[in-house]
């Protein structure tokens, strides 16, 4: 009987211990859109290092494909099952911030030991800060660069964009010329829009760089910019390249840069991970300058905490950990940082093993000079309203000026 009592007591103590241990252990759920093993390994290392101050906290990274990311995130929020924290793209930021679903991280970040919030570049924070409130911390401030197929440029006997940039001759005119020559001499396309989706899901990525190079903008201060002379000139040039020079992959065709079908494309440095298997010599160069000079375009993503999460304070502490100087430097190999101290360091230019330091210097330069892609609280509605009008633009006999006026007429009520 005594023995039985002792066994019972021991079991009870053990069970209570397990229960209390379980209660102490906490898990943060973090949604991301990367499925890259290298990215996830790095993220897990950062999560592991959080245990130094929070030994019972684990972080589970959950991948949602980029194409469905915003929708699926919305379902999770609407379904009462919000992640604790997640990545967020720049075009979704205003909509989510206005809906009040993002937590203000300002006080946590400013009071975190050794965090140095002022180290973040102010323009890079523009989209995520409202007065003292901070709704997200950019982890990737990645400019769009020209990827070129060096092998095709050599075959066509042309100077490549990097050489042209070094000589100060890399502008919209030479861009058009080399694309046309490539097409004539090699039969391959001169240029492909980002991921071949410039006519549908990447309209902004297709139109924005030339429009800004010409000194225009798609919209600003509630006013549409598509029908301004700068935008018309820029889009007319693209239109000529597609339908007169036939040097840009036209709508309805496929001309994948990464498999060698196009000599140039536009993308961010995270895509460099696809290049080792491409099978040709390549490099990255800045976007061609235009009448308005250099005007790099930046795509941005930030880490946010969801207001409806049950562990939002803990999640905010993890954001402070993940975006401290040390971890930002670690992430810089894939995601260009918004921290000035890391951006200016040699560690950043030599961080990417696939891209030489002199090409990474152009990335740093673009981050310093660039402007983030446009976004708006009603981005999804604006893009949907634009799409059919932009479709009408991409026809051989389209009147570019009229088509762009139609774009403005469609989106102005939403701006």
């Amino acid at each position, binding site marked *: 009987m005594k023995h039985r009592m002792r066994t019972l007591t021991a079991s009870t103590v053990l069970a209570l211990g397990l229960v209390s241990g379980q209660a102490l252990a906490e898990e943060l759920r973090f949604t991301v859109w990367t499925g890259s093993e290298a990215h996830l390994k790095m993220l897990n290392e950062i999560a592991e290092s959080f245990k130094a101050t929070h030994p019972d906290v684990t972080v589970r990274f959950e991948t949602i494909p980029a194409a469905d990311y915003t*929708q699926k995130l*919305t*379902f999770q*929020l*609407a379904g009462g099952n919000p992640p604790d924290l997640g990545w967020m793209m720049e075009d979704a930021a205003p*909509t*989510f911030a206005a*809906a*009040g*679903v993002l937590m203000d991280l300002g006080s946590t970040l400013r009071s975190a030991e050794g965090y140095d919030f002022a180290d973040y570049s102010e323009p890079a924070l523009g989209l995520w800060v409202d007065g003292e409130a901070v709704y997200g911390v950019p982890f990737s401030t990645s400019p769009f660069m020209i990827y070129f197929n060096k092998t095709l440029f050599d075959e066509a006997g042309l100077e490549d964009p990097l050489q042209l940039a070094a000589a100060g001759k890399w502008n919209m005119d030479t861009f058009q010329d080399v694309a046309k020559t490539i097409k004539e001499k090699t039969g391959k396309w001169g240029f492909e829009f980002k991921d071949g989706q410039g*006519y*549908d*899901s990447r309209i902004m990525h297709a139109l924005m760089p030339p429009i800004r190079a010409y000194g225009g903008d798609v919209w600003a201060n509630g006013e549409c910019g598509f029908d301004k002379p700068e935008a018309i000139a820029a889009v007319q040039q693209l239109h000529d390249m597609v339908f007169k020079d036939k040097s840009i992959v*036209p*709508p*309805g*065709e*496929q001309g994948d840069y990464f498999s060698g079908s196009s000599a140039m494309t536009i993308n961010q440095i995270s895509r460099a991970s696809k290049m080792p298997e491409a099978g040709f010599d390549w490099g990255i160069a800045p976007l061609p300058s235009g009448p308005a000079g250099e005007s790099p375009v930046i795509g941005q993503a930030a880490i946010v905490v969801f207001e409806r999460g049950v562990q939002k304070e803990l999640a905010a502490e993890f954001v402070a950990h993940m975006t401290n100087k040390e971890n930002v430097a670690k992430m810089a190999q894939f995601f260009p940082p918004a921290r000035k101290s890391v951006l200016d360091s040699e560690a950043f230019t030599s961080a990417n093993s696939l891209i030489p330091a002199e090409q990474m210097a152009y990335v740093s330069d673009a981050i310093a000079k660039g402007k983030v892609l446009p976004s708006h609280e009603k981005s*999804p*509605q604006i893009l*949907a309203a634009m*799409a*059919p*009008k932009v*479709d*009408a633009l*991409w026809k051989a006999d389209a009147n570019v000026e009229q088509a762009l006026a139609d774009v403005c007429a469609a989106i102005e009520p939403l701006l």
Partner: protein
Amino acid sequence: MADALTEKGSARSWRAPRLTLRQREAIEAWLFVSPTVAGFLLFFLGPLAAVVYFSLTEWNLLTQQATFVGVKNYVDALSHNPDFWHVLRNSFVFAMGLVPLNMALALSLALALSRPFRGVIFFRTVFFAPVVTSAVAWAIVWRFLLQGEGGAVNQMLALVGIDGPNWLREPDWAMVAVIVTRVIKMVGLNMILYIAALQAIPRDYEAAARLEGASNWQIFRMVIWPLLAPTTLVIFVITMIGSFKVFDHIYLMTGGGPENGTLVLAFYIYEQGFKFFNVGYASALAMIMFVIVLVLTVVQMTLRRRDMQ
């Protein structure tokens, strides 16, 4: 004997309350159907009632704020939104193109493949295979084949001197392309239904008609076609409902473009609900779609019944 019966009777009344046979059968019947009824209430009637309620609210999915607005969403859709009528027109064009083409092709294939001959299983498999093929793979392959100049379809047309259009970038041709590729994908299902119906028709009918001197066309028109009527009705209804509900095919092939030329109702509902977060408005559109499909089905069933009488 009488004592034994009394004893048995008292034992029974001790075990359970006295129920008539009819009551016992009713309870058993309800127990048998209860899983289905529960599923129906939980997964069909419940969500349907919820959609009716949502359609009377202005509910933003992201902010989770819902305001009761009565029939405003219906009024907005039917009288203030020109996009709705354009989308509805597209849905009707899609259905009117897809349903007859699908049914005619399915019946032709079934007539050709209902009788046994060498290789019949192979051909049936070939025509049925697209039904079980992944919609994503199907769309990717067709997008590749339907490219403007470099597409295999246009290259084949060029061989016979035809300059093919840029199929997925011209609104009218894009609609033709999504209809035809959808028909090729789904026709196998209707073909199987027709084959099953054809095989159920006794051969004697055809033999008798032939003895009477009927031609092949007369046998089909006067004997087979009337006997296929119930199957035709089922196929018509499910194909029409499917064509109004089409979403994945449009999403993957054209995304509703170009110039909203293939923007159909189900895709528009998705955009409103899950891209713009207007769940109330999207629910009203879904109810309108439900009513349209219901009316078309009832009309078709009524006409068919009158035909058969």
